[in-house]
């Protein structure tokens, strides 16, 4: 088991994280930051307008052409 490459890689990361000092604070900051970015900002404030409002690329193209040429 201990010669298994996956086991070795797992322990490499496991030991690395376990022995961190300042790194633990940094990882906490990274996790909080990513949570705010992807689970708050992205979901509630930054929808992809074209993906959200249109189902197909053709609809998106038509919308952008309409926006660019102000056809209505």
């Amino acid at each position, binding site marked *: 088991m201990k010669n298994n490459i996956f086991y070795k890689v797992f322990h490499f990361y496991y030991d690395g994280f376990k022995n*961190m000092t*300042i790194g633990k604070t940094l990882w906490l900051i990274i996790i909080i*930051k990513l949570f705010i970015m992807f689970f708050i900002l992205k979901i509630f*404030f*930054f929808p*992809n307008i074209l993906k959200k409002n249109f189902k197909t*690329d053709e609809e*998106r193209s038509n919308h952008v052409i309409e926006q660019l*040429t102000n056809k209505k």
Partner: protein
Amino acid sequence: MTDSFDLSVVDWSKAQFALTAMYHWIFVPLTLGLGFIIAFMETLYVKTGDEEWKRITKFWMTLFGINFAIGVATGIILEFEFGTNWSNYSWFVGDIFGAPLAIEGIMAFFMETTFIAVMFFGWNKVSKKFHLLSTWLVAIGANLSALWILVANAWMQYPAGMHFNPDSARNEMLNFWDVLFSPVAINKFLHTISSGFLLASAFVVGISAWYLLKNRHTLLAKRSIIIASVFGLLSSIFVGLTGDGSAYQVSQKQPMKLAAMEGLYQGKEGVGLVIIGAPNPSKTYNDDKDAYLFKIEVPKMLSILGYHDKDAFVPGIKDIIEGGYTYKNKDGQEVVAPSAAQKIEKGKLAIQALADYKTASDSGNKEMMAYHKKILDENFEYFGYGYIKDVTSLIPKVPLVFYSFRIMVGVGLLFIVFFALVLYLVVEKDIAQKRWLLRASILMIPMAYIASQAGWIVAEVGRQPWVIQDILPTVAAVSRIGVGAVQVTFFLFFAIFTTLLIAELKIMFKQIKNGPKEGGH
């Protein structure tokens, strides 16, 4: 389209993008340069076996880790903004922007999950040489990661290697290498990463100088200063050379930006370069007021730098608006510059041709599709001008660009002298006795950040009103969303980024105060 559009959405979206990009750029340049400085230090450790070099490497690696951790993924917010605030733009640029960003994302992922882990966790677990290789790959990978972002940015300054597909309303890549190796992209990449090397060198010299002032960790400080001042001196010279290359490209591809950088309203042959001066804030492009309140210039230098010819004609803002001068086009042919009014007419023709093409396409009339596509293709290079209502909106904010350019260049030149002096004193004399220089070294850290930000202001404010040069102005690129939503997220980002910056500074200062030690990161 712009008649009924709330322009404050454009302004707030621009302000938000500028805010996030500038905050993001606080973290990036240190990563770009410090990675290489650490790699140099670790190379010396592996070559000499001197444990002090290992201690030095690990100390700077910890500061690298703090900066990397706080800064990582802050750029993703820019991509959020593309999808929400700049949806027309996102669609319009198509795979030109998507391909480099996808490569960047994949590279960053692999680099960050493998080699950075080896760099931080791998001491005493992998061989010295493999660890060193990982450190070098992190440094190279971070810079290659920046390459793809800068290629995408360069394409917006000088769209090359693509054609516009009127069926999809997207620009499609014709030649990847034309995009990657466009002269603007090459200069932008080299200039930007070398400015990061300079900044990181200033960071290492400044912190080391603080240790010398406190009479702590003097061996670490002196050795770090030697490495950083050599790297900083070479980088600052290289920044100057690539800056010259960038200015040459700007003069060829973005003459309005060059005119704004110089506050040049009336073009002429053999134009001087203003070293110190103040643009007249009440000057408009077509009045007779003096362009400067005062100026000191080097005769003919702008013609030399911009066109490599001391007597070359450099168009001013008025010339670019009114046209009529001759210049070399993309194919190298001498042509007469059209006026802004003529470009606007061509832009309107292109926009109308796109609308007519769409109508013909919807009705399946292939003959009319071909007819309108021909008009669109013939006028597409001025497509964005069709949205311009007032020619004065083609002029960037001259004072901001003018002063930012001088801050960038002035501080950049100062750094050449600074690193040369520091290197001389640390090698030949006892730099620890030059307390004035040590104090000045600490001050040079914020100076490097200011110069770096000023460079981006020149690049981005100088190309306004365009998101894609000549093809798409900001007013056409922005989404039709409520201004309130953009205002809320502007202040939200301001709060988040400021918190991150304070966290970075607090952790960084604490770590610097503690100094180097053995053990984990």
